[in-house]
C-alpha cells in the first residue's frame, strides 16, 4: 500500500512537470530496499505508460514536433545502449554515487531562477524547421 501511495506521490510530481522518477529511485532504494540497478530498471519501465499518455497529450495540443523527436531519438537510442551497458558494468555502490552527483546538480538547477520554466509561455512561435 505504501508503495502505491509513494508511487502516486511521485506521479503527481511528474504530472506537474518536475520529474518524479528522480525521487522514485531513492524511494525504492531506501524504503523498499531494492538494489540501485533494480530501482533504475523499475523506474524505466514503470514510467513508459505515463510518458506515452503525456506524449500523446502534448502531440494533440500541438506541442510535440515528431520530426525533431525522431532525429534526436536516433542519437538517443545509441546513447541509451551505451548508458545502460555502462550501468550494467558499474557496481551498485558506484552507480549510487553517480546518481547522487546527478541529484545534486538537479537540485541546484531547480533552485536557479531560470529553472522555473512553467511560467514561460509564448516562445513557441520560434519554430526553426
Amino acid at each position, binding site marked *: 500500500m505504501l*508503495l*502505491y501511495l*509513494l*508511487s*502516486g506521490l511521485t*506521479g*503527481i*510530481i*511528474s*504530472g*506537474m512537470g518536475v520529474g*518524479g*522518477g528522480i*525521487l*522514485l529511485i*531513492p524511494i*525504492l532504494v531506501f524504503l523498499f530496499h*531494492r538494489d540501485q540497478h*533494480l*530501482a533504475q*530498471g523499475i523506474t*524505466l*519501465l*514503470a514510467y*513508459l505508460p*505515463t*510518458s506515452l499518455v*503525456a506524449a500523446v497529450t502534448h*502531440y494533440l495540443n500541438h506541442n*510535440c*514536433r*515528431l520530426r*525533431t523527436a525522431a*532525429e*534526436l*531519438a*536516433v*542519437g*538517443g537510442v545509441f*546513447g*541509451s545502449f*551505451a*548508458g*545502460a*551497458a*555502462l*550501468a*550494467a558494468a558499474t557496481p551498485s555502490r558506484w*552507480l549510487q*554515487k*553517480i546518481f547522487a552527483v546527478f*541529484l*545534486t546538480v538537479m*537540485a*541546484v538547477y531547480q*533552485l536557479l531562477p531560470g529553472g522555473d520554466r512553467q511560467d514561460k*509561455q509564448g516562445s*513557441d*512561435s520560434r*519554430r526553426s524547421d
Partner: protein
Amino acid sequence: MLDVLKRRVVKVALIGFGAGLVNGLLGVGGGMILIPGMVYALGMGEHDAHGTSLAIVLPISIASAFVYSRNHFIDWSTTWRVAVGGMIGAYFGAKLINYIPDIWLRRIFAAFMLATAVRMVL
C-alpha cells in the same frame, strides 16, 4: 546553408546521444538534457521542447529497459504497482499544476534531492 545544416546535425546527434547516455546510466534524466538542449542549442520554445522530449524519452527508455532486462535488472511485480500508482498520480498532478505555487514545489523538491544525495554518498 550547408554549414548551418551540418552544425544542426552535429548538435542533434550530441544532444540525443547525451540524453540517451544519462537516461540509460541512471534510469532517469533524459528530459533534463533534452529540454535545455532543444531550447538553447536548437532554439525551440519551452512548450515544444517539453512535449517533444516526452516523445524521445519513450524510445530511449525502451532501448535502456531492453539492456536492463538482459542483465536481469527488472522486477515486474514492483514495476506494475509503481506504474499504476504513478499513472493515477500523474493524472492528478496535471490537474493540480494550476493550484500549487511552482516556486515552493521546486524548493521542497530540491531540499529532498539534496538530502537524498547526502544519504547516497554516506
